[in-house]
């Protein structure tokens, strides 16, 4: 998720730089015209038109970026889904989250999802990598049953390796037993 926000941030920065660059270029012939009285009215109009077109294109790109950002913020509201210890079956709450995600993905065809399966620290690295995979696959199966194209769903297990909370309490473990849903744009 953070990576997507970062990418959008970079894109916005690039857009604003190119905007400055384009307007900067447009101004140069203007100042030259002040000196060069031989320049025709037609040239000026042409330059102004080009400037307007460029600005409109930029505006469209920015609007598209803002829309993407808004949609990703929306997608971000699909919270992680939680699991019981040593279990990978989906709770009613988890199914609720996944149903909403399925609806959203159905109405936003340009988006895909990565499901990261995670575990708490108890048990071994290997068994937890397997358990994390089962958790991610359970969510994937549920989404495909709701009609989401399985090509749009990627799964990856991180086992117990990337805890959300590094503590060794029941509360920390409960937070760490999760599928983390990462929605991203194909574009």
């Amino acid at each position, binding site marked *: 998720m953070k990576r997507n926000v970062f990418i959008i941030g970079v894109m916005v920065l690039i857009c604003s730089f190119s905007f400055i660059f384009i307007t900067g270029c447009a101004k140069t012939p203007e100042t030259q015209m002040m000196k060069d009285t031989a320049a025709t009215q037609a040239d000026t109009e042409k330059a102004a038109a080009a400037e307007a077109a460029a600005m409109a294109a930029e505006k469209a790109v920015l609007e598209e970026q803002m829309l993407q950002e808004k949609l990703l913020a929306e997608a971000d509201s699909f919270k992680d889904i939680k699991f019981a210890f040593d279990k990978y079956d989906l709770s009613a709450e988890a199914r609720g989250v996944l149903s909403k995600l399925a609806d959203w993905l159905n109405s936003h065809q340009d988006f895909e999802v990565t499901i990261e399966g995670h575990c708490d620290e*108890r048990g071994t*690295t290997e068994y937890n990598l397997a358990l994390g995979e089962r958790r991610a696959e359970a969510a994937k199966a549920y989404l495909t049953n709701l009609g989401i194209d399985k090509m749009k769903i990627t799964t990856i297990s991180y086992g117990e390796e990337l805890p959300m909370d590094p503590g060794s309490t029941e509360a920390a473990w409960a937070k760490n037993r999760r599928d983390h849903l990462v929605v991203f744009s194909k574009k």
Partner: protein
Amino acid sequence: MRAFKGLLVVFFTLVLCLPAWGKVYIDIDSPAFQKFPTAIPDLRNMGTRQDKEDLSRWFSEQLSSALDITGYFRMIEKGAFLEDPKSSGITAEATNFSDWSVVGADFLVKGGFLYDGKNLSVEFRLFDVVEGKLITGKKYWGSIKEKKVMMLRFVGEILHALTGERGVFDTKIAFVGKKGNESEIYTVNFDGTDLQKITNFKSLSLLPHWSPEANRISLTSYLRDNPDYYIVDLRNGKVKKMSEHVGLNLSGPWSADGEKALLVLSKDGNEEIYTIDIKEGTLERITHNSSIDVSPSWSPDGESIAFVSNRSGSPQVFIMDAHGKNVRRLTFEGSYNTSPAWSPKGKKIVYEGSSNGGFQLFTIDEDGNNSVQVTFERGGAEDPSWSPDGRYLVFSSKIGQKRRICIVNSNGLNLRVLDEIKGIQSLESPSWSPHLNLY
């Protein structure tokens, strides 16, 4: 290390007297084992050159700390020694054994050295104080740089004489060092020296396993955003990608001949155990079950595989033939038993089981009898791995907020915690190397 082969060694004692020496047959792996009380006075300078490097004390201290690390010796404090070094020598004839039995020593190590500023010769002798007899002795010639090798070689002699095995000072432990969302593979010597960073992938790297010649380490890494299976060649640092199937590619133990390794793949829809031919990369699927099947470990003869499956509801240890036939459940007590490792001596399997809300190590005979809890650590004990002589276990335990690497004798005694690494939060998944034959 090859340079050490040039080291000249002379056996100058009566090896023949060894079989007559009854204590060899003491079961040193039993929890009732009493450590050998041993005294090591400073070595004698046999030359005329002043001992500027303080080799006298260096040798006695290094021998003491090496023997102490093995967990089989209780070193007698030097302050208690009664023998007058001026009126005694390093032979049995020149030793007053009653001076040593009075201070409680059953064993005595004496030695002397000659150093000319470049070359060094050292002789060591191990005595049985009670019998007043020499057990074994050796003399080494070499350069001063080889003094640690000389010292460790004689430690090997002492261990061989008293325990029947040469010890594991020529072994290393590989483990995972974690920092934030990244982890790398490290190795360290049995005695805690010579820490080395093996990978620098800046990714998550897990599950190190040694090749039988100890010149390669296999591992699983998220280097390319998927848990893939790699082999790192320790001789030249080259990294070879061995398996990159969709899903899990989990590194497992190598076969004794180094031609194959066990691994777990989930490419066919769920986690199954396979072997991979290291040269050809060809796979043989061993398990066929829709449950989780992970953590395979070969028996020393390669005929059987212990593994973890949740096919009976919760994770338990199972055993099957090398090609997947005759599956039988090994563990029945407790609802969470994982991470089996077959003892190199055979018969026994160590695993990690739940105990009072945490995890501890247990051993069980391969026929399912004699389940014994080995560790009782406050921070739990996970990911066990045997030393190649089957006399020690290494595992990870949470000490404070950090996971650390711990070594115990196989009877669960003599816990030793390896040093932390600066800037690394957590050390886990230790894997014990085969003998490197350095000494």
